[in-house]
């Protein structure tokens, strides 16, 4: 088995008396899509922020591509990217200007071709010259996804990436993710509250509850372990317990 591209060991984050993430450990294999499930306040976003170097862990280690995030931040972040339905991008810039800034930030070669490609893949042609503040929420989500795909990351962190998209575009995004996974061996850490999507997309799932990792395995293994009929029932059971 290949070495994991991401390895998290005993990761903990406390804010004063509150423990947001409590000693979780997991790994992401090359080319794997790992779903992260959990009710609100379970620690999913805090974990993702720690993986992106935006929050310093209280204890534990995060390593990607065999390097420690704390000591090799620049080299690691060059190879990862993220997108979230809840994030924003500079509102006064056009879609294309925003993508140019991202391309420069990551020092990409052949920028125009890459922007043209991603604009085509995500069907953004009709609004590429539009000022970002005038985008609909679905268009905004596509822009944040374009920003994430543009840099050709080896690991992609996606926080509810299809939450504000219509079913057609959401389907295309899922297909694009699967294509990238097959073509370039992209590894993805994926959160969603859409259980069907989670079952369809994820090779494995980890389930967080009150900052603890309470279950790990394929969707079928998790459903079976909790004696429920599907992932949604597992989610409801754990969410109501928390």
């Amino acid at each position: 088995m290949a070495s994991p591209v991401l390895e998290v060991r005993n990761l903990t984050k406390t804010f004063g008396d509150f423990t947001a993430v409590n000693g979780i450990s997991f790994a992401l294999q090359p080319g794997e899509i790992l779903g992260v499930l959990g009710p609100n306040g379970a620690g999913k976003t805090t974990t993702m922020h720690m993986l992106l170097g935006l929050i310093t862990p209280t204890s534990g280690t995060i390593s990607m591509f065999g390097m420690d995030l704390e000591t090799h931040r620049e080299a690691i972040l060059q190879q990862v990217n993220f997108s979230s339905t809840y994030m924003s991008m500079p509102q006064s810039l056009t879609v294309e200007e925003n993508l140019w800034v991202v391309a420069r930030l990551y020092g990409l070669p052949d920028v125009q071709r890459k922007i043209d490609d991603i604009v085509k893949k995500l069907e953004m042609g009709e609004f590429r010259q539009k000022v970002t503040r005038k985008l609909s929420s679905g268009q905004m989500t596509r822009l944040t996804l374009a920003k994430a795909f543009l840099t050709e990351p080896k690991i992609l962190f996606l926080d509810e990436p299809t939450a504000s998209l219509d079913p057609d575009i959401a389907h295309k995004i899922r297909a694009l993710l699967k294509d990238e996974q097959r073509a370039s061996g992209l590894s993805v850490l994926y959160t969603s509250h859409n259980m069907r999507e989670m079952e369809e997309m994820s090779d494995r799932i980890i389930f967080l509850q009150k900052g603890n990792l309470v279950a790990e395995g394929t969707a079928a293994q998790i459903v079976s372990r909790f004696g429920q009929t599907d992932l949604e029932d597992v989610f409801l059971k754990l969410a109501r317990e928390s």
Partner: protein
Amino acid sequence: MKLHRITAIVFRHLYLYRRSLPRIMEIFYWPFLDLVIWGFITLYLARYQTQVPGFVTFFLGALILWDVLFRSQQGITISFLEELWSRNLMNLFASPLKPSEFLAATMIMSIFKVVCVSLVMGVCAWLFYDYSILIIGLWLLPFVLNLVVTGWVIGVFTTSLIMRFGQEAEVLAWSMVFLFQPISCVFYPMDVLPVWLKPVAWANPAAHVFEGMRGVLSQSGQPVEHLGWAVGLNILLLTAMIAWFHRTFAYCRNQGLLVRVGE
């Protein structure tokens, strides 16, 4: 430091000026208004030139140089606020961008603003009041450079506070610099300060620049000595402020403030 990351941030801010009239106005409107008001006051006071020689030169020169410092500070702080307002800090600091590269980019933006403002004020002062800032001569260049650096010192200090305390502290972006104005001795010599305040002013590099400027204009002071103080203090204070910025950044990462700031 990687140049492409610094230029990415510079371009991101320059794009803002392409289609934003309020941002362009911010560069030209206030300096122009300052110049008009202070220009008239200066003309009025010039009637009493016999009592205080070189009034026009002192006041208009001081006003233009003060705006250099002010815009230099704003170049850093407003650039940070733009990221805060557009909730873009997450995108920036989840990328390979280093805090030092971000600061370098904001310093370049501050030079851009200083050049724009200085040109506007210099030309307007010459057109409206027949006053040339070049009367200060070759001393102008080291004076301006020192004021730009002092602006960075105040800008980095203010930015650290805003990063630490969030959007409710954003008013500091416009007000903090005025805390330094009384001890910068912009329009009056250091002599007029009360004894207890003089050491504070002495530790402020801007005060040495303005003292030096008055010395050059009245041909009575020692600009070299003041310039030496200004350079030394600027190096010391800028180093301290950059270290403090990094410390604050680490604190904010630890407290999760980077992802909450701007919310």
